């Protein structure tokens, strides 16, 4: 056979294959969430091996670890957007209004408040520092919001505040890990990993757990903060970046067209099917599935990350800056992601560590700028979700890893160039909004200077228990066996905070 003949012959063969292939893709692979390969191989049967002459029984999860699962209990929400202000925002300049602290401004802190306390930087006897923002009661709920957050004050009735969250960690790394994984030490899965492990994702063209960062840095605790710990790494957060490849290696190499990439994946998967016929190893089916998904992800992720096509009024509403890394962009992306069925969207915004050691970290200057950066986008996010009817099936969580002291920081015992506050975990503010949340609620009260909880104190575990509850889990029953024992996100603690539930 000369080479021309061969080419022709191959062309025919190729077309024939392409036909079956298309059929294959159409019937069995497209919209993987619905039709999983496992059932395909059970029902189509033709790929099962010779010798055993039977079908390999596989569940959706066997061939697609991200297959969507129903929660064990009725859920209020389907997805979560978690806004984490890394560095720990000051509750005293944002939500926890303390007029008495204003009166005590500049006075030395009474010893009774310092005894037995450990601080990260405060030494000796610091002075109290009055609120650096002005407060008003807003909305029908009459909840307090400072003038650092003018936009947010208009949506305050959508959220429920937790004013007395408590953590026992007062260094960023451990406290962020605690807030995101339920343990201050490394090795535990993050909330997002637990949730995608438990529920999978409704969108098989995008990662189920997406991480977006802004502020120029990743959080102090490093990438483990969205790690999957002892859960399979398929459930770890996938960072989508604003610069470079949105997801690492998502772009085709230069010079390779989509068409050619499709041919490549088709060739790979055809051969993998041959391999499955020979070895009957279900992992091969999973791999076929994952290559299909990677191909679709390559189109879906850049499309998603492109916010240019959003209508002008939406862009303006969030205050986005296309092409840059910004919290506003990430809020808009978060909405697009949950709209597309992504299970868990985690935002980190870096730069909230208002110690007073620089202009950017001054509680009256830098903090105000940070508030301005998030004010409009996070308010827009709530409104945008609401106008699309998504807020009822989404949980939005806002908070830091701890709060800040009512005392003015005096690093190394000296007065500092700017006004600042030290780390403080005894009582700080978080808020939640969305499905199942009691709108306009405020739970927890701190003392007159905002130092300790006097009622409604809740722990990090309680916050986690509440998030899981809204997603349809009993946090005490949602476990994973590792090292010979069942592990939980909430360890051996945690109570659902019923006071903020609708």
């Amino acid at each position, binding site marked *: 056979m000369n080479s021309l003949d061969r080419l022709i012959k*191959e*062309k025919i063969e190729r077309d024939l*294959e392409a036909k079956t292939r298309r059929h294959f893709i159409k019937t069995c692979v497209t919209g993987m969430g619905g039709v999983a390969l496992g059932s395909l191989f059970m029902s189509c049967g033709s790929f099962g*091996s010779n*010798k*055993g002459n*039977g079908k390999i*029984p596989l569940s959706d999860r066997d061939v697609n*670890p991200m297959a969507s699962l129903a929660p064990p209990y009725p859920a209020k929400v389907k997805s979560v957007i978690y806004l984490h202000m890394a560095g720990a925002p000051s509750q005293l300049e944002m939500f926890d209004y303390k007029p008495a602290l204003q009166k005590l401004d500049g006075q030395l802190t009474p010893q009774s408040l310092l005894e037995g306390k450990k601080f*990260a*930087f405060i030494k000796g006897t610091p002075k109290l520092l009055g609120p650096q923002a002005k407060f008003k009661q807003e909305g029908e709920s009459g909840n307090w919001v400072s003038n650092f957050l003018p936009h947010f004050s208009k949506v305050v009735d959508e959220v429920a505040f937790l004013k007395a969250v408590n953590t026992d960690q007062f260094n960023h*790394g451990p406290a962020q890990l605690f807030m995101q994984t339920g343990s201050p*030490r*490394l*090795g535990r899965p993050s909330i997002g990993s637990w949730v995608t492990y438990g529920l999978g994702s409704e969108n098989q063209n995008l990662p189920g757990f997406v991480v977006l960062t802004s502020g120029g840095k*990743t959080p*102090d*605790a*490093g*990438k*483990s903060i969205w*790690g999957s710990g002892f859960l*399979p*790494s398929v459930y770890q957060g*996938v960072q989508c*970046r604003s*610069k*470079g490849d949105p*997801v*690492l*290696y998502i*772009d085709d190499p*230069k*010079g*390779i*067209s989509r068409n*050619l990439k499709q*041919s490549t994946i*088709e*060739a*790979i998967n055809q*051969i*993998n099917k*041959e391999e499955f016929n*020979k*070895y*009957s*190893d279900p*992992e091969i089916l999973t*791999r076929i599935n994952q290559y299909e998904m*990677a191909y679709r*992800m390559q189109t879906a992720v850049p499309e998603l990350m492109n916010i240019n096509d959003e209508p002008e009024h939406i862009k303006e509403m969030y205050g986005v800056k296309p092409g840059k890394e910004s919290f506003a962009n990430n809020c808009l992306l978060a909405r697009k992601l949950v709209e597309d069925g992504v299970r868990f969207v985690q935002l980190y915004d870096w730069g909230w560590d208002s110690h007073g050691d620089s202009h950017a970290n001054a509680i009256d200057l830098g903090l105000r700028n940070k508030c301005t950066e998030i004010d409009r986008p996070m308010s827009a996010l709530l409104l945008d979700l609401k106008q699309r009817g998504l807020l009822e099936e989404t949980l939005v969580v806002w908070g830091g890893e701890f709060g800040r002291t009512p005392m003015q920081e005096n690093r190394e*015992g*000296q007065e500092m160039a700017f006004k600042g506050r*030290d*780390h403080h975990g005894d009582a700080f503010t978080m808020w939640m909004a969305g499905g199942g949340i009691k709108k306009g609620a405020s739970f927890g009260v701190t003392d007159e200077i905002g130092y300790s909880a006097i009622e409604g104190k809740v722990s990090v575990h309680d916050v986690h228990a509440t998030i899981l509850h809204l997603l349809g889990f009993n946090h005490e029953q949602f476990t994973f066996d*590792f*090292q*010979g*024992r069942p592990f939980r996100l909430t360890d051996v603690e945690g109570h659902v905070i019923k006071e903020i539930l609708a």
Partner: protein
Amino acid sequence: MKRRIITTSFFVIIIGIVILLVDYLKPDPLIDFSTQVKPILNKNCIACHGGVKKSGGFSLLFEEEAFADTESGHPAIIPGNAAKSSFIQLLKEDDPELRMPYQKARLSEEEIELLTQWVNQGAKWGEHWAYSLPDKVNIPETVQVAGISSENTKGFIKNEIDYFILRGLDNNDLEPSSPAEPNVISRRLSMDITGLPINTDLYESFNSGNISYENMVDDLLSRNSYGEKWASWWLDHARYADSKGYEKDMGRSMWEYRDWVIRALNKDMPFDQFTVEQLAGDLLPNPSVDQLIATAFHRNTMNNDEGGTDDEEFRVAAVIDRVNTTFEVWQSTTIGCVQCHSHTYDPFKHEEFYNLMAFFNNTRDEDTTGDEPNLKFYDKEQEIKLSKVYDWILKNNNKEVAEAYNNFMKYLEPVYHAHLAENYTNGSLAGSQSIGLRDNGSCYIKDVYTQGANYIYLRYSSGVDASTITIRKDNPEGEILARFKTNKTQGRVIHKFPFKKINEKTTLYIEAENPTISAKTPTSYISWIAFLPEVKGSESPGYSEIDKEFMELINTKTPTLPILVENPDFQKRTTRFFERGSWLSQTDTIEPGTPHVLNDWKSEWPKNRLGLSKWLVSKENPLTARTLVNRVWHQLFGRGIVASLEDMGSQSDAPSHPELLDWLALRFMNEHEWSIKSLVKEIVMSGTYRQSSMNNAILYQKDPENKLYARGPRTRLSAEQIRDQALAVSGLLSDKMYGPSVMPPQPEGVWQTVYSGEYWVESKGEDKYRRAVYTYLKRTSPYPSIVTFDGSSREVSTVRRTVTNTPLQALVTLNDPVYLEAAYFLAKYMTKFDDPDNAIASGYYKALMSEIDKNKLISLKTLYTNSIIEFEQQAESIREFLPVESEVDANLAALTVVANAIMNLDEFLTKS
């Protein structure tokens, strides 16, 4: 006739009755606590009755607790009398408020019956299998059952392992698979032993029959690549990384330890020695440099430099990590739970955690920014000087004094770190790491023992001249022990100043004066102070030169490695019990000791880390050898004999082949004398290992996880193997060994760690193509393609990597420039063959050591044709795709696409 029938019938009936009676009178079979009772208790009872909780004052965790009086005033279990045992009666309660398990479903009748029988038989307590090791295990007899005599079984048995496996198969009506094809087994073997694809020459000699399978095994085991492959495995256990972890995650130089592991594995250092040197090399008599390097195993703990953190808190965290890691790595035991409470499921008591902690609580490291103690690596010339100084001091002084100086030259210990200073006036702990006293500043350091020294050594830096430092005994009015001036320095220096001899533990009061500087400027930054015993012979000629060389050596900047150094007696810490696991509430003093349930402590062992390491590698320890053989088995089969590699306690998975596990463990210690290479060889020589890994529906249904081993292993390659294989088949792989970690290409902007200021600087030349074990590992931001394939970030010890299969993995091998470059070089090799079919077949063969079959060739050829068509239409895309090529070569571009596809095949990414 009739009568005979009747008589016969009568006898038959009588015999029947007798049989029934015998059967009835026969005692019930003895219930086994470990295998029958304990699992029911663990599943249903222990969460409330054991460990943390003892509801009703009743616990089933320890024997003495189970039979003790409960809150009711009586024991819940009355041995021999189930009817009187509330433990049994409450299981049968109808009232759900009273019935146990509380608010849970009733136990099944069988379970209740079993527990009842157990109590009636005397409620004999038993020990879990993991806590004792038999003296001897008999190899099962050859099984001569019909089902086993088929074709496949013939020739299956290659060594003793196979008898154990065969018995399991037979019990489940399964047969072994036929042996894997020569190319398949060669690739599997080479990947398992060296982590690299099989060398073509070696494969050809084996395939042509010039060498035996065993020759091939021996050849692979003798290669340096063996140590590199198995080092990746051990370094996961050791949580080895190139950075300190936590927030700042600054780089640290640990690679000497990685190289030590590679060398130790390659020379097949016996595992007992391997253990002792890593846990306690510093405590061996006259430890060699290598033995000190080995102790870096436990210096791989993280070090927290975050501003505002308490060094003591993170020192304690590191010590706790050492206890946990030691038990995870050597004992398959999660001792971490016991930090806060007695183990819920396993017989480890709360205080036993602190007994173990006491072994590790006396090392010099204190979470300092400088990672002290650091072993200094001197060059040859400096080594000669060091010996000269040592010899001179030894000539004039006793050995103890000479050793003190020797150690100080080697690793600058013992010192008192700046963070010990307290009660500052006009000063502070600057940058969390130095005493910074301003003019008229002062501070105290408590509990200092000067060893009667006549000098104080100070490591400090200063930006100003003419500061006066005065050190007094106890307080501002105390006796002056030293007074000296410090001047501007070039960076950090170690100076010594005369010091008044005292011979007791004392408080040092340190004050600084310098009226010429501003009130905000520190006079100096002191990172530590130290004392050495007085040297005799300092008046003799020659001393000044020795002293000069000594000061030069300790001031020399050398490469370093963090190591373990034990506290001298005067710096010994007391270990205390932590109330509820919190380091802030410490109570009773605790002595070093090992868990009661494990092997006994021998009096000849010192009560320190050295003794602990000997206890671990004692042949009486039931877990060390089992742990190791189980993990080596897992490396080869993708599954452990006990599948839960990290746990061999009562919550672990039951061993699939308990006797094989014990047999291998005993043989590993007694016959292989702890040789890992011999163990690996024994396993890969077995017929079990050499089987084909083909599956089928029947096999899959009977044994989806292949825990009976009716087929060979088929697992995805590790992150390291995937990278190394791609580089190897493309001819790019560098065989350069050892040295500082390298930075192969990584996308921009991956490192974004706060406060670090460190950058990924892409390596040049062959360092771009080194094996993955040499890739720089930053804990908070590990090399992306390695973590994508389930590599560990090594923040904590990883005993088992979960193997996943994700779309992100596909994106790496399809699009990562590293893999595209490998594809390009494989394609260049393929261009040597004129015909595209040949080119594709050759590329496939090079990658997989296997002839391509027709269907696969058609698929790849179709891809090739599609590529050619597209590239020929758009020459520009060839230039974009292969920018390094000056000529536009559509064939090369198309072959690169094909090579990329080959390197993405399941069979390429998998060990079959």
